[in-house]
């Protein structure tokens, strides 16, 4: 009889644990290249405002930020991204795996026509760090017709590969300036520049 009770109790504990694990949502956010531990820990600190947050992990080099929350929190994609912005950073992609297996994702795919002929161009873009890199590349890749965008921290140059029938270099420069980075022909608004994280405050370019 004793063994039966112990077995039942053990089964009950296991079931409770499993339910508790199942009752959590998994959040995976790629933040625009957290450059240093001060930035990374700061982001984490701002998310502590959410009750029940657990399993927080931050990869500083890649900007991968993951955590879990109890399902009842039901934190939306918009709320997560707003909190990242509140902490002073830019979310690149967000993926939420709900407890019931449902996946929500903000990832978008690049739209390029199959028969498109791609043109390569280097554009001077001001910036300083890995966070700048992530932000600049995201802005450029977000334009329909841009197949590739790679910004060099050392060279301060954005290499873009784009469909010249659908997009112009001017469009790309405007998009990049729109997120706070001066380009060779387009200057970012002072207010946008001022809102960049501290470590991204580069020396302004003269157009």
């Amino acid at each position, binding site marked *: 009889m004793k063994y039966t009770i112990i077995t039942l109790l053990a089964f009950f504990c296991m079931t409770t644990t499993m339910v508790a694990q199942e009752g959590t949502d998994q959040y995976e956010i790629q933040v625009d290249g957290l*450059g*240093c*531990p*001060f930035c990374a*820990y*700061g982001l*984490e*600190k701002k998310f*502590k405002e959410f009750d029940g947050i657990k399993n927080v992990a931050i990869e500083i080099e890649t900007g991968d930020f993951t955590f879990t929350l109890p399902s009842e929190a039901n934190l939306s994609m918009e709320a997560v991204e707003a909190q990242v912005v509140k902490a002073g950073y830019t979310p690149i992609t967000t993926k939420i795996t709900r407890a019931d297996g449902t996946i929500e994702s903000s990832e978008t795919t690049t739209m390029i026509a199959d028969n498109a002929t791609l043109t390569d161009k280097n554009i001077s873009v001001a910036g*300083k*760090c890995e966070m700048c890199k992530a932000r600049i590349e995201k802005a450029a890749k977000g334009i329909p017709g841009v197949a590739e965008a790679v910004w060099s921290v050392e060279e301060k140059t954005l290499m873009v590969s784009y469909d010249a029938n659908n997009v112009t270099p001017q469009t790309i420069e405007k998009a990049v300036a729109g997120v706070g980075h001066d380009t060779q022909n387009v200057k970012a608004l002072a207010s946008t520049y001022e809102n960049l994280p*501290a*470590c991204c*405050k580069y020396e302004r370019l003269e157009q």
Partner: protein
Amino acid sequence: MKKSIFAALTVLMFFSCKEHPKSWQLSQMLEIEGVNPIGITHRADGIWLSDGDHHRIVRIDENGEITETIDSLDRPMHIATNGDELLIPQYGNDEVLRWKENVVKIIAISDSLDAPAGVWRDGKETVIADFYHHRILYSEDGVDWKSFGSEGTENGQFNYPTDVQLLGDEIWVADAYNNRVQVFDKSGTFLKKFGEAEKMNASTGIYVSKEQLFVTDFENNRVLIYDHEGVLQQELSENIEKPTDMILVDGKLYVANYKNNRVNIYDWKEDLNPKKSKNKEVNN
């Protein structure tokens, strides 16, 4: 003939005996397995490192082996010592601990902190870098506090201060994202600044000796060394990756590297291959 040979030997001896200028030269690199050091300090029992990624501080021996761990901390940053007491600023929960053989005191500040990144305590005199508030807190007696600084780029303003040190009548501050070091008197009056000419990118850590200022240029993977007048004396970059803090112990310079799990050790000795002197920075 004899005289000529004697004269030649004398000249040769003069040049061979001529002293070379001294500089910091890398002598040893300690691999600290599993530790991403941010702060470094020294107590009588050895070198201590803060390992914010793993919520702990560790003591290491001369081979880099961990000999003691204090864990369950919340993102400890630029640690310091005051006698046999360890000072631990916890970025994650806004507390600064005074730790002495398992007796832990929390430095009480009525005006709450937001991410204390650095602390220094000398006797009862204490100074704290309050990261998100862009200010420095100073107390002469450890009880009554005054603060100075605000967010900005002007002299006396800060852009996320990360490290502090008391030296004599001065407070030295790593003004990290203004990419400079600022110096104040104890009333918070701005005195001078360093480093803007060197185009630092995140001056996250400082150590000030009686003669020199050491600054970590985090993103540029280098340590800059100035005299107290702001003249750049040396730049260390060999085997430095994301440096965060430094300390002098028994005449040796220790540099903590966040990225490569290393502490580099430098000796102050004659430089047989001196490089050209660096730029001069004008203060004030």
